[in-house]
C-alpha cells in the first residue's frame, strides 16, 4: 500500500522535481517506508511506499525490462500469484516477486484491457513511453482513490487532494455543487469533489491522457441483471461460502503479518473465523469500544474473541477522544462529513500501527452486497405497508426497524405511520428507498447562507444523480436499486473513503475487504433478493453459509449499525474551545457558506443540552467539518511535507 502522485505535461515540458517531491511528501503518511520518483521528457511519477510484498525489491516507480512502460502503484493485486505464473509461461521475465511488476507485464500483453484481469484494490498510473500515453486506473469498488486536475497542458494526479494542492499552479476553491451533494447523499458523486476543478476518478474506470486529451472509460459495471434460472437456496449458499473463503485466502497474501478488525458484528466475525481456518498462528484482532453505552459493542467483541481465540486489543473511545481527533480526521477525509464515525476508526488505525501491524482484514462491504442495511429493510416495510393499507401489524413492524433508536420506539403509532408513509405513486419512484434519507439530510441546507442558496438555485443534486443512472437501473427490482445506490455512491464516497482508506492510511494501515472481491460482488448482485433478505432477516444467505463458524450470540444478535457519539463531543471538555472558535459567528460570516444566526441558534441548542435529534447532530458535524475543510485546505493550507527521514530512501531509478 502506498501513495502515488505525478505530473504529465503534454507539451513535453520538463517536470519540476522539487514540486514532485513536495507532492509525494504530503502523502508519506500512506507510505512511510520508502519513496521514489522517476522523471523523463514531460512526465514525472512519484511513489511513497508501504512495503508489504517483496519488501527488498518491490521499489517504485518501476519499469519493465526495456524501460518502455513505467508504473507507480498504490494497492494490492491479490491474484498476482496466478497472473505471474501465466505471464511467465508466456515468456515474460520478472525481476521482482512484487504484484506491481505483474501489472506492468500484463499491460505489455493486453494494454488498457489489463485491468479486467486484476482482482484487487488499486489506484495507479502507467506511463507508456512509446505512445507518450498516461493511464490512471482505479479498482472496481473504489477501495483506493485517485484524484486529478488539469492545469493548462498538464494533468496532475495523486492519491489524495492535498498532493494536488501542493502544486503551485493548482487553485483551491470550494465547489458548492459538491458541498450540496454531501448535504444530500453524505458524499460527492464522482468525478465531482468538494473542490472546484479537482476530480475523482470513478471506481472501475480508466483515464487515458494522450496528446493533451483526457478520456475516461469504464472497464467494469456494477450490474444487478439476474439470470432467469433460479437455483435452490443450498446451491447459492454453497457458492457464497466457497467464494468468500477464497476471497479471504488470497487476501492473506502478504510478507508482513495480517490482523483483523473485529467489531462484534456478523461480518467481521465471519472474516475473522475464516482467517483462523488458514492461519496456524494466533490472530491479532482490533476493535473500538465506546464509553457511551448507546454505541458500545464490547460485550459482543469479547464474545467473538473468546470463541475465536484471537489476541485482541481494543481502544476505548469517549467524547473527548472524538473531539480531539476530529480536525486531524478532516485533514485526512478531505471533505465534510455528516457523522463523527470516521474519528474512532482513525484512532483505531493508530493502535494497529503501534502494535506493529500494517495490514488488517475487515468485514466492510457485506451490508452493501448482501442486503444488510436498515435502509433496505425500511424500504421493504414501506412497500409492504403501502400495499397492505389495513394491516394491523403496521406500527409493530415499523418499531422493529430501528430498535436502537429510543425516540422512534417512543413515537406514537399515528406519527410513526405518517412518518414512514408512502403513497401508491411513491412506489414508482426510482429512489423510493433512499429519498427519505436524502430529504432528511437535505434539510440541513437550511443552514446555507443566502448567497450559497442563490448560487445553488436551479441546481438539484438528486436530478444530477438521476442523470447518471444506467438505463438498466429501471429494469431492476426495488431491492437491487437500493443496493445499487449504496454500492455505487455511499460505499466509495464515504464508507471506503472517509471511514476507510483515509483514516486507515492516515497511520499507514492497509485494510483489505474480502466481501468486496469482485467475483463475490458479481455473484451477490445476481442473486434473488429474497435470499439476501429473507422476510426481514438481513444477510440470510451469509448466516446460512457460515453461521456455523460463529458464536450463537453473534449470529442471533439484532443488527446495530456502527455509530459514534456526535455533536455532544464538542460541547464539553477538549472540543469546546476549538468548536467555539470554528463556529464563532464572525468566522461563519467571513467564510460565507453558512448563515451565522442559524448556526448560533444550533450552537445554543447544544449548549443548553436541548439538541437531541439526529438532524441537529448531522447539522453540527456537517457545519463543523465544512469549516475545518475551508480552514485546512483553502484559507490556511500549508504545503511542505517532508521526505527527510533517515529510514526513507529514494529508490528513484532515473
Amino acid at each position, binding site marked *: 500500500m502506498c501513495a502515488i502522485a505525478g505530473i504529465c505535461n503534454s507539451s513535453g515540458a520538463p517536470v519540476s522535481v522539487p514540486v514532485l517531491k513536495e507532492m509525494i511528501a504530503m502523502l508519506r503518511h500512506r507510505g512511510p517506508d520508502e519513496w521514489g520518483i522517476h522523471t523523463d521528457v514531460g512526465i514525472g511519477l512519484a511513489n511513497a511506499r508501504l512495503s508489504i510484498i517483496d519488501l527488498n525489491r518491490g521499489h517504485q516507480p518501476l519499469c519493465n525490462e526495456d524501460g518502455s512502460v513505467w508504473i507507480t502503484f498504490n494497492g494490492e493485486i491479490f491474484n498476482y500469484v496466478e497472473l505471474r505464473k501465466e505471464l511467465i509461461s508466456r515468456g515474460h521475465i520478472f525481476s521482482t516477486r512484487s504484484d506491481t511488476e505483474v501489472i506492468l507485464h500484463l499491460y505489455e500483453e493486453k494494454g488498457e484491457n489489463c485491468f479486467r484481469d486484476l482482482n484487487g484494490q488499486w489506484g495507479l498510473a502507467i506511463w507508456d513511453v512509446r505512445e507518450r500515453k498516461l493511464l490512471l486506473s482505479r479498482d472496481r469498488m473504489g477501495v483506493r482513490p485517485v484524484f486529478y486536475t488539469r492545469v493548462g497542458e498538464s494533468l496532475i494526479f495523486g492519491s489524495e487532494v492535498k498532493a494536488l494542492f501542493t502544486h503551485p499552479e493548482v487553485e483551491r476553491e470550494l465547489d458548492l455543487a459538491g458541498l450540496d451533494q454531501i448535504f444530500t447523499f453524505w458524499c460527492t458523486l464522482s468525478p465531482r469533489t468538494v473542490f472546484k476543478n479537482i476530480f475523482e476518478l470513478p471506481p472501475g474506470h480508466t483515464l487515458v491522457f494522450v496528446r493533451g486529451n483526457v478520456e475516461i472509460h469504464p472497464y467494469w459495471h456494477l450490474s444487478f441483471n439476474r439470470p432467469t434460472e433460479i437455483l435452490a437456496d443450498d446451491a447459492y449458499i454453497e457458492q457464497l461460502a466457497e467464494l468468500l473463503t477464497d476471497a479471504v485466502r488470497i487476501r492473506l497474501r502478504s510478507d508482513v503479518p495480517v490482523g483483523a478488525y473485529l467489531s462484534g458484528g456478523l461480518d467481521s466475525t465471519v472474516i475473522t473465523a475464516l482467517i483462523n481456518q488458514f492461519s496456524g498462528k494466533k490472530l491479532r484482532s482490533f476493535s473500538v469500544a465506546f464509553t457511551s453505552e448507546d454505541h458500545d459493542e464490547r460485550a459482543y467483541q469479547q464474545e467473538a474473541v473468546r470463541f475465536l481465540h484471537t489476541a485482541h486489543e481494543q481502544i476505548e473511545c469517549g467524547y473527548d477522544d472524538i473531539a480531539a481527533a476530529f480536525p486531524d480526521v478532516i485533514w485526512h477525509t478531505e471533505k465534510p462529513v455528516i457523522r463523527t464515525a470516521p474519528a474512532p476508526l482513525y484512532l483505531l488505525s493508530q493502535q494497529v500501527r503501534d502494535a506493529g501491524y500494517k495490514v488488517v482484514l475487515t468485514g466492510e462491504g457485506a451490508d452493501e452486497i448482501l442486503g444488510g442495511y436498515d435502509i433496505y429493510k425500511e424500504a421493504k416495510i414501506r412497500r409492504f405497508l403501502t400495499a397492505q393499507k389495513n394491516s394491523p401489524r403496521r406500527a409493530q413492524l415499523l418499531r422493529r426497524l430501528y430498535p436502537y*433508536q429510543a425516540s422512534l420506539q*417512543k413515537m406514537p403509532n*399515528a406519527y410513526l405511520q405518517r412518518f414512514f408513509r408512502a403513497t401508491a405513486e411513491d412506489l414508482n419512484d426510482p429512489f423510493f428507498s433512499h429519498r427519505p434519507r436524502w*430529504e*432528511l439530510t437535505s434539510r440541513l441546507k437550511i443552514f446555507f447562507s443566502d448567497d450559497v442558496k442563490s448560487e445553488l438555485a436551479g441546481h438539484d443534486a438528486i436530478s444530477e444523480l438521476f442523470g447518471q443512472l444506467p438505463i438498466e437501473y429501471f429494469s431492476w427490482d426495488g431491492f437491487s436499486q437500493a443496493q445499487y445506490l449504496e454500492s455505487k455512491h455511499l460505499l466509495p464516497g464515504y464508507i471506503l473513503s472517509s471511514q476507510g482508506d483515509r483514516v486507515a492510511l492516515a497511520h499507514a494501515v492497509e485494510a483489505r475487504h474480502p466481501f468486496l472481491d469482485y467475483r463475490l460482488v458479481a455473484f451477490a448482485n445476481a442473486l434473488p433478493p429474497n435470499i439476501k433478505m429473507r422476510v426481514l432477516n438481513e444477510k440470510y444467505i451469509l448466516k446460512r453459509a457460515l453461521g456455523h463458524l460463529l458464536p450463537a450470540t453473534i449470529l442471533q444478535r439484532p443488527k446495530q449499525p456502527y455509530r459514534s457519539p456526535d455533536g455532544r463531543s464538542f460541547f464539553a471538555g477538549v472540543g469546546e474551545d476549538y468548536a467555539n472558535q470554528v463556529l464563532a459567528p464572525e468566522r461563519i460570516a467571513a467564510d460565507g457558506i453558512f448563515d451565522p444566526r442559524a*448556526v448560533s*441558534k444550533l450552537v445554543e441548542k447544544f449548549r443548553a443540552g436541548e439538541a437531541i435529534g439526529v438532524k441537529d447532530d448531522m447539522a453540527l458535524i456537517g457545519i463543523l467539518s465544512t469549516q475545518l475543510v475551508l480552514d485546512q485546505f483553502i484559507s490556511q493550507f500549508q504545503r511542505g511535507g517532508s521526505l527527510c527521514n533517515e529510514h526513507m530512501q529514494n529508490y528513484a531509478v532515473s
Partner: protein
Amino acid sequence: MQRTHAELRRFITNNFLYGRDCGFRDDESFLEMGIIDSTGLLELINFLEKRYRIKVEDADLIPENLDSIDQLCRFVERKVENHSPATIAPVLQGQAM
C-alpha cells in the same frame, strides 16, 4: 390566544428552523414541511408540558392535535381550559416571555 400563538410560532421557528422563518402558514403541516421528525416530536411535547404545565397524554399524540401552529394553539387552549384556572393562571402570568 394571540400570545400563545406567537410563542408557539417562535418556538417552532427557533427550534426547528434555527431562526430562519421561511414564512410558513399557520395551517401548514409540520410533517409535510419535514420539520418534525421522531426526536422533534419529543422536543415539542417537552416544550408544551414545561411551558404550559399541561400533561400531553398518549391519546393526544396524533397529528390532528400537533401538526400546525393553528392545531397546536387549539390543543394548548383546550388542555389549559381543562385544568383549574387557579393552577394555570400563575404559571402563565409568572413566566416572562
